[in-house]
């Protein structure tokens, strides 16, 4: 295999190189469904992402390779997967940043049931999200025009509005891996987004929900979620802020 990744050349002069993907496969329709590893080698360019290489496999080598993807630039949150042992979006991970001289391992995100190849059942994840009441709860007598909110009040929860619900954080959390009932970082992030919104009046209810046995107190600040977040949200910090709000309320 010839991995010829030179220094990032100017756009338009991208060297091509071969890259091997080591992909965790699982076919539920097989006679005896069993997960296994399969390797594919494709040629790639300097600006190619892991998703591009996977598309080459799907479109040129093996059409049965199954994964979710949509926008292909890190906005829709479809293609979170475990790449070289870390949760990332395949469309936001450049091959050249991964040392393409070694096979790149690609597995489904951990902790959710695998449906096929890299596709997992997202329903438990979204169920946790729905449970934290992720919507504005505001008084009935809204003004005719917009509610006023200062730029500072708006900035207070800016970080957590960036969430794209890709599940990279929740499925990187060791607590979630062993306790699938844990709300998980993503649900807490989305509760945080409203708890700290000056227009919202439902903070008490949300804090009550997250005070649950499976709520924020399960978090043990391993920072896996912050590392995994493709949107750069400081997830662990957000969780800590929710904890702090609860403690302030209790004492």
């Amino acid at each position, binding site marked *: 295999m010839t991995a010829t990744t030179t220094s990032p050349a100017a756009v338009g002069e991208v060297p091509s190189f071969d890259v091997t993907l080591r992909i965790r496969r699982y076919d539920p329709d097989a006679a005896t469904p069993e997960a296994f590893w399969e390797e594919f080698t494709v040629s790639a360019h300097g600006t190619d992402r892991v998703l591009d290489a996977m598309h080459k496999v799907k479109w040129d080598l093996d059409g049965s390779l199954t994964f979710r993807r949509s926008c292909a630039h890190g906005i829709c949150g479809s293609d979170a997967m475990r790449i070289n042992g870390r949760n990332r979006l395949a469309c936001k991970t450049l091959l050249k940043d991964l040392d393409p001289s070694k096979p790149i391992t690609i597995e489904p995100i951990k902790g959710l049931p695998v449906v096929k190849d890299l596709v997992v059942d997202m329903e438990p994840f979204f*169920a946790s999200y729905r*449970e934290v009441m992720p919507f504005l709860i505001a008084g009935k007598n809204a003004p005719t025009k917009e509610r006023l909110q200062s730029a500072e009040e708006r900035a207070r929860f800016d970080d957590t509005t960036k969430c794209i619900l890709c599940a990279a954080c929740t499925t990187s959390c060791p607590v979630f891996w062993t306790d699938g009932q844990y709300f998980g970082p993503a649900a807490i992030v989305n509760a945080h987004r409203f708890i700290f919104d000056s227009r919202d009046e439902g903070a008490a209810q949300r804090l009550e929900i997250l005070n*649950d046995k499976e709520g924020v107190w399960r978090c043990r600040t391993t920072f896996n979620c912050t590392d995994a977040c493709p949107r750069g949200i400081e997830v662990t910090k957000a969780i800590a802020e929710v904890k702090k709000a609860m403690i302030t309320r209790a004492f």
Partner: protein
Amino acid sequence: MATTSPTLAAPRSPRRSGRGTTRGNLELYGWVFMRVSGALLIVLVFTHLFMNLVVGDGVKAIDFGFVAGKWADPVWQVWDLLILWLAMIHGTNGMRTIINDYATRTGTRLTLTGLLYLAFTVIVVLGTLVIFTFDPCPPGAPADVLASFCTAG
């Protein structure tokens, strides 16, 4: 009206019925207890180390008599009891977490956790007994190892 008889299938994303919420702040207090006691433990342990290893003749002064002397004082009894209990709680909790993370098979996990709790109970009970039933002046012991107050009377 329709001639077909519609079978109304359940939608694929049903709301989860909720995971038995625990009312009250039990989890919160547990969390706060671990933080506060952790901070307390640091103070306890380092003061303990300082008293034993640095003050006076330092480490050279430690002998049976030294220990006996400390445990004759109720303050140090409570002090060491707290260290024992808190260190065991924190240590056991950490071990429990590690077991949960790495023992994937239910059987292994239950066995290891069981052993852990057994060890916790044995050590805590034994240690507590020792602290409170400790005799600083065992009869028949050579006088040079005993604390000064044993021979004073």
